[in-house]
């Protein structure tokens, strides 16, 4: 079967190799050109003892990434969750409980999928959906001042117990950090000892 790049649709070169014959090579979903258009951010901030003990972001929010998010979230191209699956799997290979930032149920139905869950599913990372939103407003519609002054955005679901261990909250994009801080606060107040954050993109 001829495979095409998920982003630019050009045919992916399938150079036969021993690796591919033995099934050892990594499966490519995008072409080299598209892959090079994304720029690594590789942000890793450790602030032990604060709300978020460690924040990791993988990529910069450049034009290519903007285009990617648009196609993934607004054109609803779920298949694109595969593009960064390997990257996410690598950073999430830890002894911790992975928690996606939740979406409002109505919004999830409108989009037909929750983007963070889709990313985690493609990465084959087991996760626990322990948080829920307290209201409907999306972060993007608020000013920075409004975001900072928000009451708690998330709460732990009623029949869930939070263990005294490390949790990693995952989101697609880090803008002001408000979303992640709210999620971390909710988890710590419910008994988590340590909360880390991982985002695919850093704006």
């Amino acid at each position: 079967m001829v495979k095409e790049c998920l982003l630019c649709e050009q045919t992916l070169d399938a150079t036969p190799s021993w690796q591919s014959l033995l099934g050892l090579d990594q499966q490519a979903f995008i072409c080299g050109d598209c892959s090079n258009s994304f720029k690594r951010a590789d942000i890793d901030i450790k602030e032990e003892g604060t709300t978020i003990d460690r924040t990791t972001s993988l990529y910069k929010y450049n034009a290519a990434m903007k285009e990617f998010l648009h196609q993934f979230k607004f054109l609803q191209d779920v298949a694109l969750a595969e593009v960064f699956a390997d990257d996410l799997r690598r950073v999430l290979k830890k002894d911790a409980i992975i928690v996606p930032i939740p979406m409002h149920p109505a919004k999830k139905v409108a989009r037909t999928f929750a983007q963070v869950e889709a990313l985690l599913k493609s990465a084959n990372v087991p996760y626990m959906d322990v948080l829920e939103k307290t209201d409907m407003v999306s972060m993007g519609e608020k000013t920075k001042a409004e975001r900072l002054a928000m009451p708690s955005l998330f709460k732990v679901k009623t029949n869930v117990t939070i263990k005294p261990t490390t949790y990693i909250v995952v989101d697609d994009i880090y803008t002001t950090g408000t979303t992640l801080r709210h999620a971390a606060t909710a988890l710590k107040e419910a008994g988590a000892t340590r909360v880390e954050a991982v985002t695919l993109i850093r704006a």
Partner: protein
Amino acid sequence: MAYTFNTEVKNFLSGRIWLRAHTPFPAETIDAYIASGDIQIIPGIKSEKTTWSQMKHICNRCQNDEPSRFTTFDCAKCEGPCTYCRKCLKMGRVSTCTELIIWAGEQTVYPTIHSFAWNGILTTHQQKASEELMRSTELQRSHLIYAVCGAGKTEILFQPIYQLLTEGKRVCIAAPRVDVILELEPRLREAFPSTLIEALYGGAKPGIGPAQLILATTHQLYRFQEAFDVVFVDEADAFPYTADETLEHAVKKAVKKSAPIHFVTATPSKQLIAGRKRNASISTIQRRYHGHPLPVPRYETLWHYTRHIKKGSLPKKLLTWTAQRLQKQEPFLIFFHNIALMELAEPLFQKLDAGVKAIHAAHPERKEIVRSLRNKQLPGLLTTTILERGITIPNVQVAVIGAEQKIFDKGALIQIGGRVGRSSDHPDGDFVLFHHGITYAMDDAKTEIIRLNEGGVSW
């Protein structure tokens, strides 16, 4: 009031297949027509089990049936496995739980009174082709106009289109590239001033009037179903046409049952000729409308041009050629096979003249830049094959960098050469192939051009 609304919805949806959630009308209006049976709902994706109990999907909008172009996921809306088509994704996603709508009510009646304001005169060859095309249309059989670049293909279509319009028929001219549509639109508006014409391409917003003559990129045809009495496919051989079966299905889906599909091209494929040869429905024109021969390409070696450009200098021959064009103030097009190489070369050309610009399919100002070249505001352009066809710039001189590259096949080279000498004031011009080795495609193109000039039939 209710009645006017009815016509608007009817006029818009007639012949279209549209996303229920994205019409220009309020949801309640659409709901009311669904209830009355005037609008019919079609599921977005048709899925059936094959013999090996694998799922086979077909997109009801774009007719895509390639398994690799579908993705199945766990849908939060229909709460189950849901499949969507990635082929026409950019027109708004179509999935298993997406509803498409078609107009099933009384059909729009198009006017039969039109004015025909073109007062040019056809050459004998054009006249003959035009009559043959009309005859084929009457017989409802597919026709091929095989005419050299600059033969005046568009004018050949005028009379047959006028005939169809006065019969109240709905007509579509489809072309694979937006540049071709943009070039055709003003000419057709001028020729048919009282006809409601609509040009559809990516980014153009569809109007809600009952457009009788539609100009559309072949992609836009995905959104039509049994809409047209005739479709003319211009530049029929061009990308993505030959390569893309889905588009062929899309054209077939867009015409009414048994309606003819006509093809117009300078470089028909063997299949295209074979398909029409059986019932003798081919018209050939081997002379340009001004009677001058097609420019024959000349070869110039440009060894290791990639290396030169990567090192930051233009090869000497190319430099001299460009400097001459600038000095003589002749507009020029320089074709590249690869965007990255072209963008490396752009600043090098700008050292000669700051006005030289590079364009490619995804360039945001593509339309404006081509217009400035035509208006003589720019000295020349570097381009990918997007400008190989459909555009006319008087006295343009053409060079191909790396004519040996695979993308420059026989058809592409003939089309590129066809840009040269199109106007009767400047029936000549330079057509140079700079190369790192001569390919069969280059020789084939050259032989074909010479043969056409000698008046030989080429199939």
